[in-house]
């Protein structure tokens, strides 16, 4: 599936996006060669350089003249379309370019097929070892035949009892060939808090991106035992998915916080230490909430918003239906459980008929078991996915809101410019660029998400129908 081209915005001004300088759209030539270089690079210097880069994402923007730092600039982004970008170097960005250059090469290496310029020949870095890891990953169709260089898994939940509290930690295993990481393998233990921290950090530092959702912190329904096997397992799976999604994301996976999360032995100290450094950045990317009214939301995003609203609704409905089915099946099960034994007691009164009657009885018992399994599976595998998507959608909506705010601000500035007539055209351009970039992201992410969603749907639908099959095959044993 190719990424849709962001539409020309009415408020974009004269330049089309293709004309707008995109910091990542360096000369094609430069892009073609890097992979082998970087790949084989093991020099500390390069790694440090890249690391440095990762640590200071928004700052390049801060150097731009006339730029206002309240605009969020995400990480060095990848090229939105596969069309050639006209390059017009803007002074404000020159500095950035150099730094970003090497990062782009890193990106190219990643070969995410989210619209990388096709000029880039993607070299395959052989993925770290495990085919088992590969199997556990849910590979998108697009990534078939392509390879990743970062594999993350969450497993092995363990209970920790301390004087203050009791909690569960999970083992997070990482295998990678990326040079941002010191070692090719990591194994650390993390608890839910840590995941939460990571997500917040990601949201702060990458506000234009859709951050995958975490499983809920507290579960309201029913009597929840935080340490029950079921609950822990469900949560583990969700956390696993969470990290995998981030790892698969071309931008998020390079986030410094993510790196730290995966590798640091002692996360807590980093958290504290990082606070000072990161909070500064956090501020610089904070939005001014509200206050700006949107002139006109481009159709595209209005549509997205509407879609998300309706989709949430549908998901909710499906969730309810599935739950109702489970309930009905449970009641059916109750009756079935009564049904079987009646045949048995009849059999005891009969002579010749005993065998067939007992047969029926045991078949009914079979059905009961199979039905039970089906219901359980539905509960554990099927429903959580829906709930997860609902969470996902919420974060997407947030991103949309931010996008709106960006646009609003841009429009406000435009007005200010019009009034003041001081600023050069490049200021709105900057603003515009940012906005466009955001939109690119959104579009791409949406496309990405849609596709992902399809596959997910397919996957668990297959799961459901597979389960139904299994159930039915049990039924076939009747008679």
């Amino acid at each position, binding site marked *: 599936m190719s990424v849709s081209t962001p539409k020309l915005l009415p408020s974009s001004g004269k330049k089309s996006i293709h004309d707008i300088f995109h910091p990542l759209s360096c000369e094609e030539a430069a892009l073609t060669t890097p992979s082998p270089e970087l790949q084989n690079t093991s020099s500390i210097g390069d790694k440090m350089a890249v690391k440095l880069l990762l640590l200071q994402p928004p700052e390049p923007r801060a150097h731009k003249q006339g730029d206002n730092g309240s605009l969020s600039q995400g990480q060095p982004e990848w090229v939105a379309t596969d069309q050639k970008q006209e390059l017009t170097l803007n002074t404000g960005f020159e500095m950035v370019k150099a730094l970003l250059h090497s990062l782009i090469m890193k990106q190219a290496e990643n070969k995410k097929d989210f619209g990388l310029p096709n000029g880039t020949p993607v070299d395959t870095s052989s993925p770290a070892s495990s085919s088992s890891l590969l199997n556990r990953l849910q590979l998108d169709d697009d990534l078939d035949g392509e390879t990743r260089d970062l594999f993350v898994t969450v497993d092995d939940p363990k209970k920790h009892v301390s004087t203050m509290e009791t909690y569960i930690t999970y083992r997070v295993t990482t295998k990678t060939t990326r040079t941002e990481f010191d070692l090719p393998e990591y194994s650390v233990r993390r608890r839910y808090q840590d995941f939460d921290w990571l997500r917040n950090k990601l949201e702060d530092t990458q506000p234009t991106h859709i951050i995958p959702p975490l499983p809920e912190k507290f579960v309201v329904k029913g009597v929840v035992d935080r340490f029950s096997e079921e609950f822990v397992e469900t949560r583990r799976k969700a956390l696993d998915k969470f990290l995998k999604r981030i790892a698969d994301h071309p931008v998020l996976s390079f986030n410094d916080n993510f790196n730290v999360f995966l590798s640091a032995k002692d996360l807590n100290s980093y958290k504290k230490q990082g606070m000072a450094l990161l909070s500064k950045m956090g501020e610089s990317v904070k939005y001014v909430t509200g206050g700006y009214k949107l002139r006109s939301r481009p159709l595209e995003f209005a549509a997205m918003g509407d879609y998300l609203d309706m989709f949430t609704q549908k998901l909710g409905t499906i969730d309810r239906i599935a739950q109702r089915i489970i309930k009905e*099946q449970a009641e059916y099960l109750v009756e079935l459980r009564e049904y079987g034994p009646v045949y048995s007691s009849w059999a005891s*009164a009969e002579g010749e008929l005993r065998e067939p009657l007992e047969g*029926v009885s045991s078949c009914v018992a079979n059905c009961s078991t199979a039905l039970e399994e089906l219901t359980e599976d539905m509960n554990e595998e099927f429903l959580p996915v829906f709930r997860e998507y609902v969470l996902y959608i919420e974060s997407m909506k947030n991103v949309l809101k931010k996008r709106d705010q960006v646009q609003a601000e841009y429009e406000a500035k435009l007005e200010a410019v019009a009034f003041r007539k001081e600023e050069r055209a490049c200021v709105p351009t900057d603003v515009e660029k940012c906005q466009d970039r955001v939109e690119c992201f959104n579009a791409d992410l949406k496309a990405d998400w849609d596709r992902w969603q399809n596959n997910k749907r*397919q996957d668990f*639908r297959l799961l459901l129908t597979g389960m139904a099959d299994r159930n039915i*095959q049990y*039924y*076939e044993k009747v008679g």
Partner: protein
Amino acid sequence: MRGSEILERMADSRSEDVAVIGNTDLSAADPHNNTMTEEGVPLLKTMEISVSEAEKRTGKNAVSMQEVYTVYLIETRPVNTISEGLSAAPDSLWRRYSEFELLRNYLLVTFPYIVVPPLPEKRAEFVWHKLSADNMDPDFVERRRIGLENFLLRVASHSVLSKDKIFYLFLTQDDGWKDVVYDTGFQAKADSRLKALNATFRVKHPDKRYTELKHYSDELHSVISQLLRVRAKVADRLYGVYKVHGNYGRVFSEWSAIEREMGDGLQSAGHHMDAYAASVDDILEEEEHYADQLKEYLYYSEALRAVCRKHELIQYELEMAAQDLVSKKQQREELATGTVRTFSLKGMTSKLFGQETPEQREAKLKILEQQIVEGEELVKTSNAECDEYVRNAWVDIDRFKEQKNQDLKEALISYAVMQISMCKKGIQVWNNAKECFSKMSH
């Protein structure tokens, strides 16, 4: 056979051979008369019988009120006409359910040692939620029609019952059949419930086999009732499960409207969900047939019980007669020897009022002698009756057991087949849905 109106609709054809039309008398001791062909061949062999149609009628009932009732068309045709290649129009007449009941009651009284086939239920019982309990409901009427036909076929294929004249007339005589039945005076011969209940508790030497049989029939009755009850609940729940899946269909439809690539897949999957939900109606209709088969044996167990009860009654009467005889003999002895062995009113009165005259005693003795003779006769016949009853009944009971095992085995097998087909359909639907889902993305 009398001719009757020619109807547009033809009967179902059942190919059987020629049957015997005989006249059975009440006591087995009397020979058969009016046999037209050899004995031992049940009616069904010579005659094709079917209950082919049902119709609503309105009329005035016993209290002159308008009522709506259903009549059933009974069609008969001698088999020989068919085998000759001539498809003559069948003879037919209409009968109500109440007439069937009358026939059956007659048979019950006339052949108490036979396990008489039951009628389909009078009112719809063991009804699961969506099934109508209304006697006028077309599905109910249809199932009843089948049940009535089944009843007739069972009677007609019974070696003893099928020879009964009243039964034959039921099939063939349009007018005045009811009068004929009443004329037999069978109702007078029916045992009162009270008498029967009395007997149950007072029998001193019950036949072990019959006691066992009694227990069995009670158990059969209770277990089948329970089974039918639970089955109805199961059916209810199953219905619920299927129908809720239909909601999927609707939601998918709505969802597909807001999707682009996924839209088609979702839409068609939704259709399959709808089909799945709808399929439950057929499934449960088929299951009703199974339930009907079970019900037949539920009522059969009642008939079985009736046979046992009759036996108890006969046994009891025998015992009473014997007891009576003993006491009469005792009385005679007392009178003859003049001794009062036991404390009796006679003894008292004779002490109080003086003894009787010899003439009086003579007279009393004479009466007693006669009574004793009669009593002995009675005991003899009762004994014979009892033995005969036991013999005949046991023959039929064995036959019934065979039939029951056969029928129920078949019923269970067809139930299993039904379940399998239900599962196969389920697989198909879900596979289709799966296909649609997999088309949802590339």
